[in-house]
């Protein structure tokens, strides 16, 4: 049974996972107003899901441009939602990331900044300071 569940998880279409990261990003924005710890956990979940989607894409859809585009677009949309309450300076970095994504999209290797990861560390440090 466990094998069956694991097999089903690995067969999820990565685009669905990238779509769900948008929902978790939105939940992060809502939660940050109420409970910072839960918000940090939601951000961590977003990053982990995005990474899992990336692994699935690399393994099963490495030549599929549509899935790559979905990954990049969902990452930018997720960042745009996450940083709404942290306009300065995070939106500046987000704009740079959008520019990088568009600029390097037609190159061999897409280069983007791991903004959500950096933001997670920043939030965790700020939260620890509050304790």
């Amino acid at each position, binding site marked *: 049974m466990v094998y069956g569940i694991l097999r089903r998880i690995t067969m999820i279409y990565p*685009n669905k996972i990238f*779509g769900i990261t948008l929902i978790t990003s*939105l939940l992060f*924005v809502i939660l940050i*107003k109420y409970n910072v710890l839960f918000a940090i956990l939601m951000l961590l979940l977003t990053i982990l899901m995005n990474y899992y989607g990336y692994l699935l894409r690399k393994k099963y859809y490495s030549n599929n441009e549509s899935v790559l*585009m979905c990954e990049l677009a969902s990452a930018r949309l997720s960042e*745009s939602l996450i940083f709404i309450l942290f*306009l300065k300076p995070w939106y500046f970095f987000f704009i740079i990331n959008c520019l990088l994504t568009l600029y390097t999209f037609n190159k061999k290797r897409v280069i983007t900044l791991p903004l959500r990861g950096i933001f997670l560390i920043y939030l965790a440090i700020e939260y620890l300071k509050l304790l």
Partner: protein
Amino acid sequence: MNSLFHFSFSYLIVSLIFGQKPELIPIIAFFSIALDLDHLPYVIKNFRSLIRYLRFGSVSRTRSHEIFGLLIISSIIFFISFFYKNIIILQVILLCIMLHYAIDFMIGYSRPFNPYSNQEVFLKFYSSARQRVLLEMTLTIAGVIAFWFMVF
């Protein structure tokens, strides 16, 4: 996604984040559906086929509806934030616009890298046109009911 859902969902999320602010309803109403204005030229040009098939598709979306537009709008609002002191209004506007992008990206077909690539992206949360209609109807009714309960 339809304008009614965009508005009611944006109002719901804005209320959850910033608290109930009925005075912001006109701002939320405008900025949650303003992005759809780019459909107008396509609607005028293809009115008959739209009536027959009731489907917009990704071709009706201009580059302002994709990452390119996201970048431009984000840059403009970020620039304005240096001069305009009421940051909450800017955040509400930004939230409405970003929610519009996110909802359209999740529910329909999009071309996120238009004009650099015309490849379509679809998240496959539904598999037939009938399921899409059901999903849209359910979400819209739920959104309107939530809005009704929050305001009245």
